[in-house]
């Protein structure tokens, strides 16, 4: 909530907020090889999904309170490509991500990629929202649309 308040205050009255975050779903894991796509399973990310649902509830709350209005929303898949499952695991560790995949999935990926030329692909569903900053009723700021912060 605090971040959304700060952003609200820092935006011009006609400013917009573009928010991109994953859908509260497990990302899919695929191997792309020779024009074929093998869907192997998904990334276990219960903690991430819980965080996403909490973040979405915060966003819904400020929108419900009249700070912002969603003007447009789009959904798309963000594809991350890695030459091997090992490189994806290293990336996960480097970035501090907590999602894991099963040993069986890793073994399948390694078996498919052993011949070379393939890719380990993670498919993450994303929601993008364009939110318009709304004027606050009861503003104590004389500038149009630039009002007092809720809870101030």
């Amino acid at each position, binding site marked *: 909530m605090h971040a959304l308040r700060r952003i609200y205050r820092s935006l011009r009255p006609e400013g917009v907020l573009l928010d991109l*975050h994953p859908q509260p779903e497990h990302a899919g894991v695929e191997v792309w090889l020779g024009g074929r796509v093998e869907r192997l399973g998904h990334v276990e990310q219960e903690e991430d999904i819980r965080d996403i649902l909490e973040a979405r509830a915060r966003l819904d709350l400020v929108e419900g309170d009249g700070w912002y209005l969603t003007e447009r929303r789009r959904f798309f898949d963000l594809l991350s490509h890695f030459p091997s499952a090992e490189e994806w695991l290293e990336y996960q560790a480097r970035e501090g991500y907590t999602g894991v995949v099963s040993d069986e999935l890793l073994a399948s990926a390694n078996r498919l990629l052993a011949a070379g030329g393939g890719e380990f692909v993670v498919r993450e569903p994303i929601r993008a929202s364009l939110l318009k900053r709304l004027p606050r009723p009861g503003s104590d700021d004389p500038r149009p649309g630039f009002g007092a912060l809720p809870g101030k």
Partner: protein
Amino acid sequence: MLAMDMNGEKIERAAESIPASLRPKVSFVVTDIAKVELPPGAYDVAILSHSL
């Protein structure tokens, strides 16, 4: 333009990879959006990516 992230390594990588023509226009800061002091009414667009 102000770019911020709590992760210093990510900010460092972003600052290194930005095209030279944009460098004078972008400031990079390692901080938490919930703590940073931003000037009121200063920005046209705020972009949150995996940040809320």
